[in-house]
């Protein structure tokens, strides 16, 4: 007779190895019915492998070398038949993956993807399955679920796909849900929404959840208990509040320290004429249908944005995906076509730069991209990758180029001995250091950093931010720092520009914006990315006030939902601009 207090999952002395290399050495974990538990660790700590082991779906070459996984009376590590394991998958244990863009079959309609597992595991007829699917899609708060069933995954955004995924997995009412970094690939605002939905649906169906993540702050709000994993060892397990307040293990303390990010240290620039001025920038993406004969589809990515960056200043450009923040960065680097507007860099209009002048310009404006796994050419050694940044400097000898690139690698913390390695031999953090070295080697005046830490683990994020700060002090470059995470840009940026759907919603210096966010969209962004802060008894989850209803008498804010409404940017306080509705 099982009672409610019996654990649904019991892992004892689990060891997993790939070939001869052990990945998990001895993990013990207990999960109770209906409980949400967070499993936290850096990438490579073995937390995903643990999640896959529970399903008996270890990636190629992996095997359980010792220990036991007991799920509700079934021994997963030694099932009576492979068939027993397959019946548990989906039906009793559901799994949600990290990348919503790749975890749905691009070739199959949503309805079919949701229905097939139902057909496999239950005797329900097509009619009943369809009703259940529609009901689940409603539970994850998707509109018009009937029409949605006939569509293909590529027609949805990442956040919507992840909701579809949750609906499809929870449809079978599994007793255990394993969510492997379910929202890491999503924007802060969407992330919050998806996690809320997931927790609600799990609670409504009485499922236990093992929430795997590298970001303690994100999962702490949802989990009652936390397990911390380091290099294949579960170093600490306990109630969330206790772990936050009194971390017992050294590694947990370090993880917590990096989640806190430390005191903001804004990089303010020199007064005087700004280095970069952008006025009324508009960028459209046009897709012509049948050579333009059938008209065009025009997407307005940036709709009249003005901003400036002073010499040596860090300015943050914040917004969710699709807000146009990356496009602005690319337009400044002349990688996106602008329709209107003026970009002035160090006194020269960029439109006047051609030929030699343009090549010189490209040495003074450099880029750092989000994903260090795809921004470095896998067939070039890292020394050459960095050296390439000097290729237009014709005065330099080969030896001088080599010397400078090695010095720059050294400055970003990559020893010269590694210059002959290929990118694949480096970790994510190291690769991002190489990308930074490549950008800085030509001593640029402006660096456009497009989500430079978003693809990295929290612990690495803090290191890269510290590195940028230190390099700025050494080389004095200005930076347009693009990110979806307000707390990241808060660290280094002196001023912030909040974007939504191609328009500036709010613009102010960082301290002011955090102390008094005026625009509702800014407030929503702030609430979306949870952080840990120091409480009276150690760490606790920072409380961000939910967006408040506008005070009576406050001006009508411009809301990007109704883009047709007249838009103007008003100065609410000196240097503090807010988007309002109404004519200028």
């Amino acid at each position, binding site marked *: 007779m099982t009672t409610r207090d019996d654990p649904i999952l019991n892992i004892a002395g689990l060891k997993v190895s790939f070939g001869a290399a052990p990945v998990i050495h001895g993990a013990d974990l207990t999960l109770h019915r209906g409980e949400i538990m967070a499993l936290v660790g850096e990438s490579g700590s073995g937390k995903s492998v643990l999640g896959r082991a529970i399903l008996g779906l270890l990636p190629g070459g992996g095997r359980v070398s010792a220990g036991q996984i007991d799920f509700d009376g079934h021994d997963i590590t030694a099932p009576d038949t492979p068939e027993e394991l397959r*019946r548990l998958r*989906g039906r009793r244990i559901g*799994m949600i993956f990290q990348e919503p863009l790749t975890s749905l079959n*691009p070739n199959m309609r949503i309805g079919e993807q949701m229905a097939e597992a139902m057909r496999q595991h239950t005797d329900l007829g097509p009619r009943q399955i369809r009703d259940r699917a529609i009901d689940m899609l409603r539970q994850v708060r998707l509109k018009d679920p009937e029409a949605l069933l006939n569509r293909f995954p590529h027609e949805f955004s990442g956040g919507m796909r992840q909701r579809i995924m949750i609906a499809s997995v929870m449809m079978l009412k599994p007793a255990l849900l394993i969510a492997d970094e379910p929202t890491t690939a999503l924007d802060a605002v969407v992330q919050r929404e998806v996690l809320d939905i997931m927790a609600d649906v799990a609670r409504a169906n009485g499922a236990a959840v093992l929430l795997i993540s590298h970001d303690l702050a994100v999962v702490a709000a949802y989990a009652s208990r936390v397990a911390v994993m380091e290099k294949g060892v579960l170093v600490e397990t306990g109630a969330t509040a206790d772990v936050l307040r009194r971390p017992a293990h050294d590694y947990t303390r370090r993880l917590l320290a990096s989640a806190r990010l430390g005191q903001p240290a804004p990089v303010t620039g020199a007064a005087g004429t700004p280095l970069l001025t952008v006025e009324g920038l508009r960028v459209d993406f046009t897709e012509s249908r049948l050579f333009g004969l059938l008209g065009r589809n025009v997407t307005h990515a940036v709709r009249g944005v003005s901003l400036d960056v002073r010499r040596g200043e860090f300015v943050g450009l914040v917004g969710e995906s699709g807000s146009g923040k990356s496009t602005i960065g690319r337009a400044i680097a002349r990688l996106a076509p602008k329709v209107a507007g003026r970009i002035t860099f160090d006194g020269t209009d960029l439109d006047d730069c051609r030929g030699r002048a343009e090549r010189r310009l490209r040495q003074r404006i450099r880029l750092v991209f989000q994903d260090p796994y795809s921004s470095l050419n896998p067939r070039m050694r890292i020394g050459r990758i960095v050296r390439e940044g000097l290729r237009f400097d014709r005065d330099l000898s080969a030896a001088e180029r080599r010397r400078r690139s090695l010095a720059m690698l050294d400055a970003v913390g990559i020893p010269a001995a590694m210059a002959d390695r290929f990118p694949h031999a480096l970790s994510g953090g190291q690769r991002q250091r190489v990308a930074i070295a490549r950008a800085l080697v030509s001593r640029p005046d402006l660096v456009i950093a497009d989500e430079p830490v978003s693809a990295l683990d929290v612990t690495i994020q803090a290191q890269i931010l510290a590195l940028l700060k230190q390099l700025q002090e050494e080389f004095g470059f200005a930076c347009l720092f693009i990110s979806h995470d307000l707390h990241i840009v808060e660290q280094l940026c002196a001023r912030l520009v909040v974007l939504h759907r191609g328009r500036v919603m709010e613009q102010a210096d960082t301290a002011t914006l955090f102390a008094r966010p005026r625009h509702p969209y800014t407030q929503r962004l702030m609430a979306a990315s949870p952080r840990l802060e120091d409480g009276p008894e150690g760490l606790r989850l920072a409380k961000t006030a939910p967006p408040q209803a506008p005070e009576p008498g406050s001006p009508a804010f411009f809301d990007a939902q109704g883009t047709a409404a007249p838009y103007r940017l008003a100065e609410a306080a000196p240097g503090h601009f807010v988007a309002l509705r109404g004519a200028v």
Partner: protein
Amino acid sequence: MMGFVLRRLLMSIPTFVIVAIMIFALVRALPGDAALLMLGGNIDDPAVLEQMRAQMGLDQPLPVQFLAWLREMLSGNLGQSILTGQDVGVLLWQRFGVTASVVSLAMLTALIVAVPAGLLAAHRHNGRTDYAVVFGSIVLLSMPSFWVGLMLLVLFGAILGWLPTIGFVSITEDLGRGMTYLILPVTALALTEIAVLTRMMRAGSLEVIGKDYITHARAKGLTETRVMWRHVFPNAFAPTLTMVGIMLAGLLAGAAVTETVFTLPGIGKLLVDSIYARDYPVLQGALLFIAAIYVLTNLAIDITYSFFDPKVRLT
């Protein structure tokens, strides 16, 4: 969809014009005099030759000749064979029927074998089955199809005497007998195709099997059969389909060697024969016909793509 087909057909017009110019130039560049050939070779009286040339329009400047030829082509008149006097259009159509039946049967057989074999090999990656499949396809790949054809003829025709070695009977005349003539050439062509397609299918499947959505399909508790056929196959088939298109167009244009080995009256054999015989009308017609086959086959493949990738919209 219709718009897409229409646009592709319009876009193929320049292709045809260029091909037509090249064919015309190439045929004129061949050594030998068509008029002389028409008269049967040795002519003593130059006046007769001149008269023949005038009759054939060969005394006109080349551009004029080209336009005249193009006009005939466009009105559907491909001319008559110098050798037999048959209408070239009719001749091509008859010969194409033979080639098409051999080639499409071979391709069908190859797909029926190669797709499951490739999927199976990928599913058992680095296992014994996988090695066996890879080894088998390397063996088949390294044997040219004409040699396989000869060996098949020797074994089943000469030694065992089960199947005819020479001649051809159309399946429309006598289905049973017609089939006996098709078995060997179809097998010879299919074996090479199986080798290529199996490798494509295996490589494509291996890539897809590593994707998250396959792991997700397994995590749903689907059976392996369903995972492989419903999730891996549709996503892994595109590269194989491209290969099928290239091979199909090439073979339809004339599996000349195979047709020669098996003495099949197909389009490839017609082409080769017309070159040797300086049968210009047949040669020109055949080349133009082949260009059309290429364009149409590729169009068909592009349309088929849209069934395997919902992101491809035919607009």
